[in-house]
């Protein structure tokens, strides 16, 4: 189903057109990928694997794996990357595809070769920020990005960003930051942008192979290469881990926030880092039920304010729990989790099974840094920025791109380019993981207007301090990780302007206004599910910051802020005893469901390690026990890592299996990385003219 409306994202579609899947006529809208159009019709199985007939569908939604392969007008393409076209005939890939016959050799052109001062791979937060620094100095820069739109993963981020307002647009939504960065880059004449363009390989002779718009192969030789290719999601080994409906969180965000498809009805999330927490929140914004979230550690690793947002909306969070299995035949029908002991082993008898149709795996990210490593190995001048350099928040990626841009300008000998020494410190602060939790202030004033800060964990964030017109909110300007403080003792009084409530990315500031009635103050809360979700007069549950129900109240007023029409302010009147603790409301729906009675036997060895070649954990474990230590030897014997994705997904999983089998990783030899980054038709390397042959 397509989303008809979204509280944050604009939903606008052109005229639909017909295309066909497996002979059935369906409608797609301009710009929709084949995958999105199929999901919109409830089709999640795109084919069956030739080895064991397992159903295949979306996994990464990012063009990196090849699980979503379909035949479009006879040719194999990735459904997640290929736009549907009017009249296109799409067929599922069941078994091996027939290679179409070609009557005569196509006309073949000389390949384009170009030399550029700077080549930037990746137009996300880091790449764009670097390009702004470079373009601002008139340096000729070619920026390539494999998507059809600049911004990288920023275009999926509907929430306001953390970080520093001065350095990285904190308080602004990711989608809006993307638009700003894009506008800046587009205004720079020395920056050329190629979209839908994939870097394929960095070669030892200093050339970089590029697939331009899926049609032509271009070799570029940069003086300096910047790798800003982001991250890929880690996978997890569990039974049913390749069922359609098990995705990475990023894949899910792509389907929902880019493709505007309600990719699930009922969702379960594995992993309580920021990625999993945010994905859960995005799902709720898209009207998807979040059945629960399991985190293997005793506490979620992401920002507490993100966790609290989910908890306030009633999502049950199971800490010290792991996933045992995704269950179902042609797709996910339920999920089974269990509590873990202090060695992270599941405790028998604690299994719980929940009905759901989708399981999100959000267990961490790895840098997409192979081009950087190759370039360095080959002695090229190369830099990495953003997640390709080190996994951190997008705010850090923006700033690291900016630093990289300056460093590259310096490396090119541009005079007068400096990286201010304090920038390094700022970058380190932006990269910080959540720090200490502070006790909330024992007593708050109970008169006038009081901003209540439900934000007690040290994270790099300062928008609240930068918007207060009275200067009553402060975050240590030297270290924005410090928690914000409200200075009630100043001469100035809080005006109740609500700017801090609106701007806080954590939705963790409320206003308590005692002026009308000190015993029943008015509380202003931020809400991001759209004005129509909270009708005036509705009875809602009032919850504390971490989701505990404090009572019930009637919505008195709902106000959209003109400049910020996507955050809604909800006003309630509450008894003074609970007013300062109230941080959110919960609407009628009760998401927390009782588990369904269904014990699932744990057969972990059935779990798939290599999705491309369908190699199981059991096969790999047996070989590790037989003495195998070289991942390349495992590959030779089982085909693990030989598939389309080139070991991108299974590599980290193999290492995990080695560790689980008690083999230290220094005894293990990693895969030897080889080109190409994705599969490309031979004719394109031959310079075949598009459409010819």
């Amino acid at each position, binding site marked *: 189903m397509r989303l008809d409306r979204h509280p944050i994202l604009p939903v606008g579609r052109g005229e639909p057109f017909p295309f066909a899947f497996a002979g059935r006529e369906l409608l797609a809208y301009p710009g929709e990928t084949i995958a999105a159009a199929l999901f919109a019709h409830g089709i999640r199985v795109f084919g069956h694997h030739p080895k064991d007939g397992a159903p295949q569908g979306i996994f990464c939604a990012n063009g990196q794996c090849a699980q979503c392969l379909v035949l479009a007008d006879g040719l194999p393409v990735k459904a997640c990357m290929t736009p549907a076209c009017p009249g296109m005939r799409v067929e599922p890939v069941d078994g*091996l595809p*027939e*290679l179409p016959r*070609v009557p005569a050799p196509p006309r073949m052109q000389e390949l384009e070769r170009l030399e550029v001062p700077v080549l930037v791979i990746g137009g996300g937060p880091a790449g764009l920020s670097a390009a702004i620094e470079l373009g601002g100095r008139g340096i000729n820069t070619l920026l390539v990005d494999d998507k059809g739109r600049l911004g990288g993963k920023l275009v999926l981020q509907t929430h306001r960003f953390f970080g520093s307002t001065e350095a990285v647009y904190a308080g602004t939504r990711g989608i809006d930051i993307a638009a700003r960065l894009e506008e800046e880059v587009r205004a720079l004449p020395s920056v050329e942008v190629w979209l839908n363009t994939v870097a394929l390989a960095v070669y*030892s002779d200093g050339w970089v192979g590029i697939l331009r718009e899926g049609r032509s192969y271009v070799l570029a030789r940069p003086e300096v290469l910047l790798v800003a290719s982001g991250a890929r999601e880690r996978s997890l080994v569990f039974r049913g881990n390749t069922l359609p409906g098990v995705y990475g969180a990023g894949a899910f965000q792509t389907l929902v926030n880019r493709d505007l498809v309600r990719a699930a009805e009922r969702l379960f999330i594995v992993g309580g880092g920021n990625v999993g927490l945010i994905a859960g929140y995005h799902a709720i914004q898209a009207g998807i039920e979040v059945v629960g979230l399991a985190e293997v550690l005793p506490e979620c690793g992401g920002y507490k304010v993100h966790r609290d947002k989910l908890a306030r909306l009633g999502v049950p969070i199971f800490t010290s729990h792991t996933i045992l299995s995704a269950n179902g035949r042609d797709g996910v029908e339920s999920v089974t989790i269990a509590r873990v002991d202090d060695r992270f082993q599941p405790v028998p008898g604690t299994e719980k099974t929940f009905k759901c149709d989708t399981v999100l795996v959000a267990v961490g990210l790895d840098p997409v840094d192979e081009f950087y490593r190759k370039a360095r190995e080959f002695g090229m001048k190369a830099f990495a920025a953003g997640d390709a350099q080190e996994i951190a928040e997008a705010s850090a990626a923006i700033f690291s791109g900016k630093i990289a841009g300056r460093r590259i300008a310096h490396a090119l000998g541009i005079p007068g380019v400096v990286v201010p020494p304090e920038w390094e410190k700022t970058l380190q602060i932006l990269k910080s993981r959540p720090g200490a939790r502070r006790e909330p202030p024992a007593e708050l004033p109970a008169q006038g207007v009081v901003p209540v800060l439900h934000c007690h964990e040290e994270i790099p964030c300062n928008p609240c301090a930068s918007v207060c017109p009275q200067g009553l909110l402060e975050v240590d300007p030297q270290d924005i990780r410090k928690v914000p403080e409200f200075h009630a003792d100043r001469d100035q009084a809080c005006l109740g302007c609500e700017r801090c409530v609106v701007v806080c990315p954590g939705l963790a500031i409320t206003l308590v206004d005692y002026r009308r009635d000190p015993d029943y103050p008015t509380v202003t809360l931020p809400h991001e599910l759209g004005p129509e979700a909270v009708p005036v007069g509705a009875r809602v549950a009032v919850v504390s910051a971490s989701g505990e129900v404090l009572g019930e109240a009637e919505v008195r007023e709902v106000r959209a802020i003109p400049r910020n029409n996507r955050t809604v302010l909800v006003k309630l009147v509450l008894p003074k005893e609970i007013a300062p603790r109230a941080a959110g409301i919960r609407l009628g729906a009760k998401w927390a469901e009782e588990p369904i009675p269904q014990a699932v036997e744990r057969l972990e060895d059935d779990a798939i390690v290599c999705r491309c070649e369908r190699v199981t954990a059991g096969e790999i474990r047996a070989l590790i026990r037989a003495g195998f230590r070289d991942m390349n030897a495992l590959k*030779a014997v089982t085909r693990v890592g030989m598939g389309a994705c080139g070991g991108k997904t299974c590599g980290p999983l193999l290492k995990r299996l080695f560790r689980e089998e008690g083999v230290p990783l220094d005894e293990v030899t990693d895969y030897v990385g080889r080109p190409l980054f994705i599969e*490309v*038709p031979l004719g394109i390397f*031959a310079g075949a003219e598009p459409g010819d042959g």
Partner: protein
Amino acid sequence: MASYDVVVVGAGSVGTPAALALAEAGLRVLVLDARPSAGQGSNKAAIGGVRATHSDPAKIRLGRRSIEIVSTWKETRGGEIEWRSGGYVFVAYTPREEKLLKDLLLVQHRYGLGIDWLEARDLLRIVPDLNPDGLLGGTYSPGDGHLSPLLLVHAYYREARRAGAEFHFREKVTGIEVRNGRVRAVVTDQGRYGTAVVVNAAGAWAREIGRMVGEDHPVVPDSHEAGVTEPVAHFLDPMIVDIRPAPGSSNYYFHQLASGQLTFCISPSPPIVGEDCRETSAFLPMVARRMVELMPRLANVRVRRTWRGLYPMTPDGSPLVGWSSEVEGYAVAIGMCGQGVMLGPAVGELLGRLVTDQLLPEDHEVLTLLSPSRPFAAQEALK
């Protein structure tokens, strides 16, 4: 000090079959390899063609025997090596290749090889997707075939271990002790092993091992580049070889694997001498153009991976196999010229007979032709 009857240097396409033959002959065998597992030198870079249709009598014999071994492997040893008997096709589009191939047929027929010249029309029946434009014909040898080099080397590794051979990986040979003209021990970065026999099966790195006993083997690696595609439904049986020279390359060849993938390889011209196995930008455009011209249907098959591997070349294009004439107990099976996978199974057996002194009458001809101390005069016509 641990001691062995034989120490084999190199656990690759030649070393693992040698280890199996030696271990099955009842010898205590140690295989040393500096790499982390079997076949991590040039074996993994090979694309797996196996043929008997050479022009050199020694290679013809060895190739024939290798085909016997690999084509019956599943029945005799068990385990999948993905052998497919799809034959080899050498195509001719100019009178030059036609003459070269037909001249070779005379020698090949003398050895009773199953290979014939097919006119274009008949060849297109075997390979309907060849570009018919200008095709004169080609040779077809249906008894040849291809297999998975990776599975083959691991099958040998498994069998050799089962037969009692020991393998030490990540262990680099640093010296070979010779006293009174006889091999006494092998020294590595991790130990010293007493032995009376050392077999040098170190492939592209054989020269370095030879120097440890004071020999200078004329083995020089050059690099060839290869690639593999996505799997597609089966459409191609034989290995296709095109020996037309073109700017940058002398020949190239490809076949469809049992898995449905196409794998291809090109020989750069002039040769790129040295051990550099890093990928270059030149390969894909060069090979793609030639393949798409020859078989237009390949334009749409998607390339998955490319790599570079080494051909340990000798001056005449034939391997060096046999005892050293200078150092007693030092044998070589090196300089396979890119044919380690196809010759290895037979060479392994031959080494087994050589070391245990059980040579067959026909072995003597092979060993004479491949003698490491032979004079190098003629270049083999069809490497």
